[in-house]
Structures are given as structure tokens and as C-alpha cells.
């Protein structure tokens, strides 16, 4: 299988070609190693970082932004969103605080401080 890909790791957006061969995934057109890693993952098990918000229950009209600490498998994006929507947190919250533990091999962390 051969596919044309655009790298999403950085804004340079390298146009790459990736092919699954017997000796692994062959990548060309990438400017750096991260492109090769992205293309390999995209051909075998694509992943994305999911970002969203969680309501802060003890503050008026306040949301805290969150993300998956590591990228998660693409097919679980909407499952992750459902889990994120179901929770709320209490302030204070610090950047990096774990909001949901153990989610598709990683966790959900806060990306903003709320005093």
C-alpha cells in the first residue's frame, strides 16, 4: 500500500510518500526524522492529541482547557471526548494536573491554571 501524506507535526507541512513494504514503512519527502515517525504511525496506527475543555464546578462560568498528555489512537477520539464531557473539576487547577487517569494508554491533563 502506498499513500501520499502531508506531515502535520510542524507547520512546514512536508508532502511525503509512504509505502508499506516487507521491511517496514518506506518514507520519502520528509525533511526530518519526526516526519518519518509520523508517516510510519499514520500508515500503521494513526494517533492524535485531543484538546477540549472541562467545567470548573466551583467557579462561575469558568472552563479549564485540557489535552491528552500523549496522542491517542485516532479511532478513540470521540470516546475520549465523551469521557472528557462527563467530568468536571474543582479549582484550584494547575497546568499539568491529571484530570482523567488512564485513558487509552495516557491521561487527560489541564493546560491552564485556574486559581
Amino acid at each position, binding site marked *: 500500500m502506498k499513500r501520499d501524506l502531508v506531515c502535520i507535526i510542524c507547520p512546514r507541512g512536508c508532502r511525503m510518500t509512504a509505502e508499506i513494504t516487507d521491511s517496514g514503512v518506506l518514507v520519502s519527502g520528509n525533511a526530518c526524522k519526526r516526519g518519518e515517525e509520523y508517516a510510519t504511525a499514520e500508515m500503521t496506527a494513526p494517533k492524535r492529541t485531543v484538546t477540549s475543555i472541562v467545567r470548573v464546578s466551583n467557579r462561575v462560568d469558568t472552563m479549564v482547557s485540557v489535552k491528552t498528555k500523549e496522542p491517542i489512537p485516532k479511532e478513540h477520539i470521540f470516546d475520549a471526548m465523551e469521557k472528557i464531557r462527563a467530568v468536571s473539576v474543582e479549582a484550584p487547577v494547575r497546568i499539568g494536573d491529571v484530570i482523567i487517569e488512564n485513558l487509552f494508554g495516557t491521561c487527560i491533563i489541564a*493546560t491552564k491554571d485556574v486559581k
Partner: protein
Amino acid sequence: MQKHDIVIIGAGPAGMAAAVAAYDSGVKDVVLLDREQDMGGILRQCIHNGFGLHKLGTELTGPEYAAHYKQMVSDRGIKVYYEATVTGLTPDKIVTAQSREGILKFEAKAVILAMGCRERSRGALNISGTRPAGVYSAGTAQKLMNMEGYRVGKKAVILGSGDIGLIMARRMSLEGAKVEAVCEIMSYSGGLMRNIVQCLEDYDIPLYLSTTVAEIHGKDRLEGVTIAKVDENMRVIDSTRRYIECDTLLLSVGLIPENELTKSAGIKMSPLTNGALVDENRETSVEGIFACGNVLQVHDLVDYVSDEAEIAGIGAANYVKGLKTAKKAVGTVAGNGVRYVLPQVVHTDSGEDIALFMRVVKPYGKVKFTVSSGNNVLATATRLKAAPGEMEKIVVKKDKLIEANGDITVALEEI
């Protein structure tokens, strides 16, 4: 009247980075003014990731990138006035602000303009039809969703394929809305390629090029829009009109640098960038007033805003210290295929390498940029592709710069 060395208007990414750079250059009497309750500017509502890869070598969300600079501002003890809206700026650098404590007046040795930009609105587009609720600029919808926790709609059409529109297409999809289409009047997208992949293709959202919203329908709430193809003169082709039912229309149709204060101070403007005309230190036509970030030119990446703000911060600090010595000024000119070049003025005797920033007029394949002055070639650069949505940067070495004997032209040729 308070007296300070440097007053910075706006504590977004540009203002914060400029403040830190000025402080670190030895001018410690720096104050930041911002109309919001917190630093960070537009980054506060940009909860998606992808910030900081160039500048900080790590991938952050908007609030995290803002927090990084906020920490640096706090660590230096730089004073920030919150909820202080600047209403006046004079050429002799008197800054007036409205705040909770009443009117604040500052007399500055140098001023850095870092007010950012605002979105072009429906009124600027002349879309026919009714005026129902449910028509938002993409950034307003982003603020409502990400900071206030509202869901702005269930079924959306997005006009304009700039990055904010693409990011919002994904954001609405994640929150369970159906994004029916992204329409782009141009024959190419103005957004970053990576955003088309991870915001549209990941969620099977169609992008219709050379297509616009021809009519808005609905009495109280938006009920639908008519989209249509446009011809080469951007006129709607009637036979292609098509109705799409939706309750939300997001407009991502361009950003306008917020330069009312700049103009009130009599600073000369560029009709190409809609920002001030500046030299390599980002100093405007009024001595001691500098500009950086989206108020100067609309950027694609916050990383480059921070870079530009550092130039302005160092420039303002050097101005306050009386270190400004370069005298030989030449202009920069956009040649074939180039829409604008910034800075518009360069001092050839500055003794430093100078980076020129530019945008091309349309998408190109492989191109070669040539920076020249008369018959002297000062620098060349080859790119595999070039697009209006992606700013280009070419560095002219100081020993080459000195050879410039008149205006410096940047032009490209397809190769």
C-alpha cells in the same frame, strides 16, 4: 502622569515577548497594558495544540504557550495593568488608558504597539439575505465554546478556510456538531496544509474551493445558507446555487490589524500589510514607537510573533539606551510574485544580518527568491513550494547588506 522607560500596549504573545526581551536587554522599567483580565491575548481561547514547535522545541496548546511567557513576565517583576483599555497615543509618547482606577496616563521614552488584530465581520462581506442569530465570526464562536463553555450550534457551514475556520471545524465536530462544508472563495486555501489534514480530512468535512455563501436564510435563527461557485471575477455563478440546511454560519474571512491608536499617533501605514511601516528594529515612522505581532502583520504562527516581538523589544531598549546609530536607510520593494516585504525600511549600515519577511501573491511550486539592490544580488533562497498562507523569511548577511546602494527588491521566479 506616570513616567516609564517602555510602555507596551497589549499583553498577548507579542507584548509579553517584547516586555521580556526589553527587560533582558537592560531596560527594566517596562509596563504592560491590557484590556483583558489576564495576559495571553488570543492564545487564551486557542486550546488546540501545535504552538511552540519552532520557538520552544515542544508542542504546546495556546494556554500553555501563554503561560510560558506569562511566567517569564512575572519572574522579572514586570508590572501589568489589567482591564486597562488604551484610548489615546500621541507622537510624543503619552499613552492614555481607561481602567477600574479611572484614567491612567503614562509618559514613555519608548512605546511598543502589540494590540493584535480583529476579525473581518459579516458587514464587510455584503452577503445578501436576512440577519438571523447564528452567524458568528470564527473567533467569537471559539471564545464562546472554549472559554465560556457554550455549544454554538448543531449544524454548521464555515465560510473561509483560514486557520481559525479550520480549527473551529474540528472543534465543532468534536463537540458533536455536524460541519456540512467549509467554503473558500479563492481557488486555494489560506490555511496551513497541516490544518486541512488534521481538521478537515480527519473528520470527513468537505472543502469547496472557488465557492462562497451567496445568501443567508432564516428569520430569528439561521435556517440555512445558499452556497455557490464563483467565476474568475469572484461573481456567483447562479446555476451552481445550492441550499444547505444549518443553524450556524462561521466566518473565517480574514484578520485586520487593530491600528486605530497607531493612526491617531500619525504613524505612517502600509496599505499592503495594514500595519505600520517599520525598519529592521520594528521602529515606526514616529521615533521611539515600535510595533510587533499581528498589529504589524498578520502571522501564521505564534512562534514568529514571539520572534518579531523580541526584535521590537530589543530595538526599544536600544532606543531608550541611546544606542541607535545606523543612518543609511533604504526601502524594500516587493517584486515579481511577492505581495509585500517587511521591514519596509532597512539600515544598510546596521552591522547586523537582517531577516526579511514576505508573502507570495499566489500558490507556487518550486521557486527561487532573489534579494537584490540594483545589479547586486544580496541573497537567494529556493523553496520547494510557496503559498500566500505561509510567510517566507530570507536573511541578508551584514557584509552583503552594505553593498546595497538603493532600494532592496525581493522577487521570485518559478524554477
